[in-house]
């Protein structure tokens, strides 16, 4: 009785609810149509997001970086201190990390050998993910080494490594997969002072706020150092790759949403049909309503409420189903079930629901208008 007395306050809702309950199979089939439409829209939208996230994560954190290396027309054998200072001035809001590189062979007590790239820099923290050990802001007399190389050589945290006659202690292991920039195979990161024998820097990594800022910094550096036909410094960014991926996945997302919308369109035609059928069947009844003094607007509201009910129920079930489908998509593509809850993907649940509601109400307008405006005499005669 509680529900009924609440519904009495909303007569259109009460009538709509009872009417939908009269032909449960028909109602269920209409709802099913909407559920399929919502699942199609929401899960295809989420699939697009998952694809984009997967592509972006393959690029790693590289999109906000630019790499400066000596160009063809440089006068020196590398990048000078003065040039590094100038880069800092030209790209002010960025982290500038000059690096010296070399190659060396390492041999362990167990007889294993490994050829590694030696990178000398002051602050390794922004560039490397450490899987074991700590991530020191300054290496001082410590070293970082790739996890795989450490495994080959049997090195552990605290073990000594000799380079250029100096001993360094392993402070951390570099995670094997930190973007496609590091090849994962053999890097030894040392303090800059370890490569003091080399006068010039081999490369400078610029880390900006985001991809746009990285592109901006790269352009500023190019403009400052390079003329039309001469390249003192060569600058590489990854942001444009990101842009390509984003524009491709955006197009893909639109195409997928388009396909999804078709199914919701089909569903709304089904609702139009169901509502039209049920109002025609109830023609006499609606005539009685009008005869006993129920207003046209009230009949209209009642039938629109029925359509809205179909949309709401179908939308909710569809959103729940889409959540499950989205979970599977994200688990398969991004290997992370929880990403489905992020706004970038979960908003498609909301879109699907709103689409369902809007499509249902729109489909209800014509049958409702037709039923409300029929003359009561004709409607009664038809019963």
């Amino acid at each position, binding site marked *: 009785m509680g529900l009924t007395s609440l519904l009495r306050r909303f*007569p259109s809702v009460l009538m709509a609810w009872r009417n939908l309950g009269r032909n449960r199979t028909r109602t269920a089939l209409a709802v099913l149509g909407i559920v399929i439409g919502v699942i199609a829209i929401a899960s295809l939208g989420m699939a697009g997001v998952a694809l984009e996230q997967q592509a972006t994560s393959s690029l790693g954190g590289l999109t906000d970086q630019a790499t400066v290396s000596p160009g063809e027309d440089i006068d020196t054998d590398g990048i000078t201190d003065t040039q590094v200072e100038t880069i800092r001035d030209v790209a002010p809001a960025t982290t500038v990390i000059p690096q010296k590189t070399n190659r060396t062979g390492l041999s362990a007590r167990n007889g294993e050998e490994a050829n590694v790239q030696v990178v000398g820099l002051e602050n390794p923290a922004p560039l490397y993910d450490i899987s074991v050990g700590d991530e020191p802001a300054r290496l001082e007399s410590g070293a970082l080494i790739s996890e795989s190389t450490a495994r080959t050589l049997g090195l552990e945290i605290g073990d000594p490594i000799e380079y250029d006659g100096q001993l360094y202690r392993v402070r951390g292991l570099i995670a094997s997969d930190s973007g496609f920039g590091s090849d994962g195979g053999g890097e030894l990161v040392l303090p800059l002072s370890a490569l003091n024998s080399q006068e010039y820097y081999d490369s400078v990594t610029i880390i900006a706020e985001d991809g746009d800022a990285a592109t901006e910094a790269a352009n500023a550096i190019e403009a400052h150092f390079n003329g039309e036909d001469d390249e003192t410094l060569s600058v590489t960014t990854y942001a444009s790759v990101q842009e390509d991926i984003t524009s491709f996945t955006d197009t893909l997302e639109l195409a997928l949403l388009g396909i999804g919308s078709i199914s919701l369109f089909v569903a709304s035609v089904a609702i139009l049909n169901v509502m039209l059928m049920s109002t025609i069947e109830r023609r006499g009844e609606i005539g009685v309503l009008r005869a006993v003094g129920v207003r046209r607007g009230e009949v209209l509201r009642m039938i629109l409420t029925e359509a809205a009910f179909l949309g709401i129920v179908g939308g909710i079930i569809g959103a729940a189903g889409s959540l499950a489908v989205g979970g599977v998509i994200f688990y398969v593509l991004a290997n992370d079930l929880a990403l489905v809850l992020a706004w970038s993907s979960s908003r498609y649940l909301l879109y699907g629901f709103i689409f369902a509601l809007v499509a249902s109400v729109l489909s209800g307008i014509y049958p409702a208008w037709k039923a409300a405006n029929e003359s009561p005499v004709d409607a009664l005669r038809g019963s």
Partner: protein
Amino acid sequence: MSVIRLNGVSKRYQTGAETIDALKHVDFHADRGEMVVVTGPSGSGKSTMLNMIGLLDTPTEGEIHLDGRDVTDFGEDDRTEERRSQLGFVFQNFHLLPMLTAEENVELPSMWDTDVDRRERAVDLLERVGLGDRLTHTPDELSGGQQQRFAIARSLINEPDILLADEPTGNLDQDTGETVLDEITRLKEEENIAVVSITHDEQLVEYADRVVRIVDGVVQ
């Protein structure tokens, strides 16, 4: 003063090339506390006349006065308001809505007036027609006579001035019909309303205060 009055009402229908005069200059009136029975053969214009009195249709010629007001040129929305507040309808086939309980059916005409609670009036009316114990039943759980008594209660929920009945006993057996007519007669007096009923049932004529015969759209 008559609560409903038709002055020279005609109704013409156009079907294809043919023009049908369903009503020809009909004068009619009904007073409070009076039961007027309109009889006549099929196709005589009884139903058209009831539609005029019930403000379900508009005349081609003539005037309709409800409670002294000229309602002839009222539009659909105004006629709906008049039906809601002044008129009660009882149909041959009862026309209760199958998905609503008996009590909800009785309240139907005023269901959208959420500011007035008609439940007390509904229960009172149902007790008066002897169905106070059937409030939560749905129409398919009720007999024809019970359904018609529910329909009578529904027609009176908004305290109308006129009760219009279209063959109210047409689907009932003799005894049940008698009960229903007794009910209508009693309520007519209690509520001081005019009752206009169309029928070709002689049984109904016995309950009439006045009988109007109509043949070929003309009142005899």
